[in-house]
């Protein structure tokens, strides 16, 4: 039923105040962007290298998007960016910007680096994590002024777990790479397997102790020998051996996980819900396809822009309150409105499941119920997190 209320009239006044003719004093919104992505080391499958400016270009696009809106409202947006080559340099860049009066930040860095940065960020600072998918920053070590636009590994693996469950492919063979990130991804998947009734029939680490005189494609059929499984799940975040798993399994089974069909934040094959336009804008700007890091940075700065459009000012504490209020919703091209979880600051978002040239499905799936919103069937729900950053 339609609701006509006092709220409607208040927003009416707000709209009137926002029209260009009323605002005289231009508002300058400055956003800092700090990026440090450690070198992944040599990998076996380096055919398609990852772009070095992943994240930064998404931030730039969001600044352009915000500025187009801002020009009708007398608001300008600027980005100060530092792509650092070490943890120390990233922290130093953050401190320098912070001392210079910067209050709004987007950080794409490992969890450890982000934790150091958060210890140095004062109260009147708002930081968006557009890099790490680490669990601890969402389940225990939360910060009241840290929001996450990058999904956690748990959100990604829950999307995959739901999909395997609804396909009834319940028995899986898990292969985990040697890095910390691989272990983080695999731990998240083991949790998802429990939640969605999947059985991990084999859980094997990829150790490189295999006979390296043979190629990976020769090694993998033997490595994946087991009596039966419905799918092979790969945890190889940096893309070392995982690309060689599809079509090389002992049994003729699909490969999912970090390779094969993957749950991702964003991918070039996402085109519904108006996404084609975002992809085109990004390609015009960056001459490459938009990836997950770009999307997370874009969503962070668009969150700021959406709040500033509504508020008419850029004070971090006011932006923060607005982002957690029921007035905020981010239209971000994944078909559902996106909001922030009030216990740990994670942006709720659908997770596309993609293969390199097509979209397979989008989680959450119908039938996985939740008392509040089915978007919270992905990732750490309130009872699973000790964080209460709004209490």
């Amino acid at each position: 039923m339609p609701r006509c209320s006092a709220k409607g009239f208040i927003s009416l006044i707000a709209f009137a105040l926002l029209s260009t003719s009323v605002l005289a004093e231009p508002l300058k919104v400055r956003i800092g962007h700090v990026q440090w992505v450690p070198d992944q080391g040599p990998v076996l499958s380096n055919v398609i290298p990852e772009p070095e400016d992943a994240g930064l270009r998404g931030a730039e696009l969001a600044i352009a998007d915000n500025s187009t809106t801002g020009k009708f409202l007398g608001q300008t947006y600027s980005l100060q960016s530092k792509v650092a080559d070490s943890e120390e340099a990233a922290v130093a860049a953050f401190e320098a910007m912070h001392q210079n009066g910067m209050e709004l930040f987007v950080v794409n860095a490992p969890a450890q680096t982000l934790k150091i940065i958060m210890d140095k960020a004062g109260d009147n600072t708002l930081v968006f994590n557009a890099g790490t998918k680490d669990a601890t920053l969402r389940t225990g070590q939360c910060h009241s002024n840290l929001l996450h636009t990058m999904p956690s590994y748990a959100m990604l693996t829950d999307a995959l777990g739901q999909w395997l469950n609804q396909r009834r492919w319940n028995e899986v063979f898990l292969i985990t790479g040697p890095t910390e990130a691989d272990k983080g991804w695999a731990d998240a998947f083991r949790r998802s397997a429990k939640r969605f009734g999947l059985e991990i029939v084999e859980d094997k680490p990829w150790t490189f102790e295999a006979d390296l005189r043979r190629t990976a494609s020769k090694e993998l059929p033997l490595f994946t020998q087991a009596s039966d499984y419905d799918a092979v799940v790969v945890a190889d975040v940096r893309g070392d051996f995982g690309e060689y798993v599809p079509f090389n399994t002992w049994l003729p089974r699909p490969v999912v996980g970090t390779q094969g069909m993957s749950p991702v934040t964003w991918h070039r094959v996402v085109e519904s819900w108006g996404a084609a336009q975002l992809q085109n804008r990004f390609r015009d700007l960056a001459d490459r396809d938009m990836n997950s890091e770009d999307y997370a940075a874009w969503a962070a700065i668009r969150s700021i822009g959406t709040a500033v459009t509504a508020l008419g000012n850029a004070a971090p504490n006011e932006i923060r309150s607005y982002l957690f209020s029921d007035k905020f919703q981010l239209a971000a091209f994944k078909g559902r409105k996106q909001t922030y979880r009030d216990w740990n600051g994670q942006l709720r978002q659908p997770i596309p499941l993609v293969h390199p040239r097509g979209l397979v499905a989008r989680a959450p799936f119908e039938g996985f119920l939740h008392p509040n919103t089915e978007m919270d069937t992905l990732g750490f729900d309130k009872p699973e997190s000790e964080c209460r950053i709004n209490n």
Partner: protein
Amino acid sequence: MKSMFKQTALAAMIVLSTPALASLAYVSNEKDNTLSIINTESREVVETISVGQRPRGILLSMDHTKLYICASDDDTVQVLDLATRKIVDTLPSGEDPEQFALHPNNKHLYISNEDDAIVTVVDVGTKEVLAQIDVGIEPEGMAVSPDGKWAVNTSETTSMLHWINTDTFEIEKNIVIGQRPRHVEFSKDSKIAWASAEIGGTVHIIDVDNLEQIHEMSFKVPGVNQDRVQPVGIELTSDGKFAFVALGPSNHVAVVDAQTYEVLDYLLVGSRVWQLDLDKDEKHLYTTNGVSGDVSVIDVEDLKVIKSIKVGRYPWGVVIDPSS
């Protein structure tokens, strides 16, 4: 004598079978690059014709002799001659035209260029580009008031209604509404504008004299997650009684009392209902359902869905020719 009677009867039958009696609905199929033509008497697809790439917005010329088609991926507006059903011309449209609106002067076509954050105004007679107006990110919905005074553009990512003076081609006012505004529809007297916000889940009612929002509607479809209630197309009956709002992936059309803004009913149609149009006597409403690839026909008097008609893949726009 007998044969003369036969001839007369034959002549009468020929007259009766001319298309003048059956009205036609045109449906753009976004992923098939085709247009489905539906006979609204038999409610069947009578012809499918090939058009440009990714056809989305479609509209009739004021004299109902031509259909304009936004062929988004061809960066052009195509002109379909309705008598011959052939593409007879193209218009310069700017890049990625998605929706457009024709001024009552039958000359000025206002086109949203989704990728360029621009509205292009083209004279359909001379093919001259009269103006390109900077608007917000992803201009989408386009409407011209029936009195010809205003052209309104919605920009999806900027979440604004841009009010363009049709004499000067300049923006006179910007109104921020809910997230991802999609479509604007004017009342027949040009006094009220209805604007849908897809992600906001709202419809905003604007008083055109004062250019101010006077009401905001939201929708609650029983048994459907609120996130899926995404208003897109709007259609108003000319008697001012009803508004119909297509609610996207909720697969429902809301029936609204156009005077009190009260939702009277929700009608279940096909998947991801997008745009809608009334037939010539306003007895039936046709909706395009993108995901299910069909058109639902709603009986306006009974407020019941009476038929679904299979069309091409991802039907986007629907226009019924009132004079056919």
